[in-house]
């Protein structure tokens, strides 16, 4: 019944609870204290076994192992570990890689404290018809929707969405609409670049929305070299695409210039909008349904000084859709925006988290906020060495101020460069497990 209760919480009371960072609306949420955070971690040369790994940290203050790494599961080699997410039944964690395009599927339900590698998908590029760099893994009922970042023809930014069953069997590929092939979509502005990055859905509106970043040529390039290459800097996405979720049909291509990355949709049942931020132009963008039922894009806020390239990265929307955490990787800042008026996002708080900061995840009630540092292996800063370079940090948030409660230096612990975080809890799997 607990599982059902959680499902009720996610589906019926969407307006009442936080998003546990950014999970699929089809998925059960952890409503209480999370027991673990799973950190998908890049292997770093000269650090530990140098391999990508799934690091499990006990984060329940009542646990004897609170604050400790309770499991570290290396997967072999460095693959540019990046994003990860659960299947809709939350029994498996799909962890993708941007260089080798491998997808590692971990069983996290048999023993939530000790994930095991269940399956590895090594033929993603061939099966998908040439998609490279699986990024987001979004749970849909009984299947996973994966975004690609690139392709194997020119390793540029043109790419596709790829569906797999929960069992890890390939289903179908949906290429992003381009000027050459709009696929029936309406090009509403200047761009139809065919790039991809994140994907989110609003099932009650039959809406799927995708954003756009850059291809393998760029994300595997040294950041300094990339920034000095004017031609390479032109190869970033400038679009958000609105899709018919059920038909998987692209309907409208919206201009959102400057590499719109993470997408987070509001939870309120009358709030038909999603947010994204642009990495290169440092703005908060709103993707919204207007009074005529048309989906539109609008820049609704500035993020730092765009001339200094703060590089907005991960974002997280809060329980009541009133706040949005925005991390800026380059200056290591987390920034809290008041989005009560979604058309006017105002920064109301900021704090420096480290030398660089990428991912942010918050607990169901928004009282705990988690941060990790790594962006991409060839973009990450190498100095100054110390606990603020590659880390997991946990904070309590009282609505006004962040107070650090826990941190792990991932280099000192010989783990690597921490990227995406996902929460685990015994409560998801029944009382028997919880009693262990």
């Amino acid at each position, binding site marked *: 019944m607990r599982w*059902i209760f959680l499902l009720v919480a996610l589906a019926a009371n969407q307006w009442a609870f936080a998003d546990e960072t950014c999970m699929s609306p089809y998925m059960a949420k952890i409503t209480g204290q999370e027991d673990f955070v799973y950190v998908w971690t890049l292997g770093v040369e000269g650090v530990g076994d140098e391999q990508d790994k799934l690091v499990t940290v006990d984060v329940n203050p009542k646990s004897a192992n609170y604050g400790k790494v309770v499991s570290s599961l290396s997967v072999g080699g460095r693959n540019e570990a990046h994003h990860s997410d659960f299947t809709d039944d939350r029994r498996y964690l799909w962890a993708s890689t941007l260089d080798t395009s491998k997808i590692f599927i971990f069983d996290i339900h048999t023993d939530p404290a000790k994930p095991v590698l269940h399956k590895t998908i090594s033929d993603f590029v061939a099966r998908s018809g040439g998609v490279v760099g699986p990024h987001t893994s979004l749970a849909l009922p009984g*299947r996973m929707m994966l975004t690609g970042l690139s392709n194997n023809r020119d390793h540029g930014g043109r790419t596709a969405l790829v569906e797999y069953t929960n069992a890890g069997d390939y289903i179908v590929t949906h290429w992003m609409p381009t000027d050459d092939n709009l696929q029936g979509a309406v090009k509403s502005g200047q761009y139809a670049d065919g790039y991809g990055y994140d994907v989110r859905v609003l099932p009650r509106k039959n809406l799927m929305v995708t954003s756009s970043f850059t291809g393998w040529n760029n994300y595997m390039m040294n950041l300094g070299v990339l920034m000095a290459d004017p031609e390479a800097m032109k190869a970033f996405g400038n679009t958000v695409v609105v899709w018919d979720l059920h038909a998987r049909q692209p309907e409208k291509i919206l201009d959102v210039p400057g590499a719109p990355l993470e997408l987070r949709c509001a939870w309120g049942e009358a709030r038909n909008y999603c947010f994204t931020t642009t990495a290169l132009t440092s703005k908060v963008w709103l993707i919204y349904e207007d009074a005529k039922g048309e989906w539109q894009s609008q820049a609704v806020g500035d993020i730092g000084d765009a001339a200094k390239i703060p590089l907005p990265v991960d974002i997280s929307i809060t329980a009541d859709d009133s706040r949005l955490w925005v991390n800026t990787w380059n200056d290591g800042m987390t920034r809290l925006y008041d989005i009560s008026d979604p058309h006017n996002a105002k920064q109301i708080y900021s704090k420096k988290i480290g030398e660089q900061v990428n991912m942010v995840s918050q607990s169901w009630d928004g009282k705990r906020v988690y941060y990790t540092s790594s962006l991409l292996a060839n973009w990450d800063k190498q100095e100054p060495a110390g606990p603020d370079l590659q880390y997991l940090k946990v904070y309590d948030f009282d609505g006004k101020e962040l107070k650090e409660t826990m941190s792990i230096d991932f280099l000192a612990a010989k783990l690597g460069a921490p990227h995406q975080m996902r929460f685990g809890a015994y409560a998801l799997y029944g009382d028997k497990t919880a009693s262990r």
Partner: protein
Amino acid sequence: MIAFLYRAALFAALLYCMAAAGAPGTVLDPGYGAPQYEPPAPGSYQLPPLGIATDGKVLNDLGEQLALQDLIGDKLVLLGFIYTHCSDVNGCPLATFVMKKVQDRLVEDADLAQQVRLISLSFDPVQDTPAALLDYAGNFRRKDFDWQFLTTASEADLLPILEGYDQWRQREYDKDGNYTGNISHILRLFLIDRQGRIRNIYSSGFLDADTVVNDLRTLAIESQAASGS
């Protein structure tokens, strides 16, 4: 008698939910309410196969033993897992509610209705006997509609079916190790074509009956095209 009263109370609760869906202050899954979108037109989209529908030994509500595959192949099938004593209004009652809405839609389209079978298969072979399912079915099934209410003779018969459909389920126990009667599970419905392939999986929390009916029409159009008729 107690079981009958329990089911009667459950049915009353479901009727209340049906009536209350959309009412101010009512906290129900979106599946109870009206959709906020126009479903895509039948035949305008693809439903790629998601795998083969698993077979297994089942009992119908008359106590007759069948192979699940006996009920798959001659018609399009919408299959959902339930247990009749599920008390969470957004759990199994919602799955049954949506199935009933699909039934109501199909009654308005006799040609399509003849091509469709609904199947509700129980998670709980202990409490959901054929007699219990027959009683439960009487609350929802139209007399002339092909809606099968199935159970299994044992956990041993049920488990391979659940595994085949990747349908996670867990009995809940209290601190003393006693079964509470509650079963944790994720709510899914499966659309199965005449070749026994799963063509869509729905999360009933967001399920819209009109969208399901359009999927059924899409598969019917596909069958017509394949047969050249």
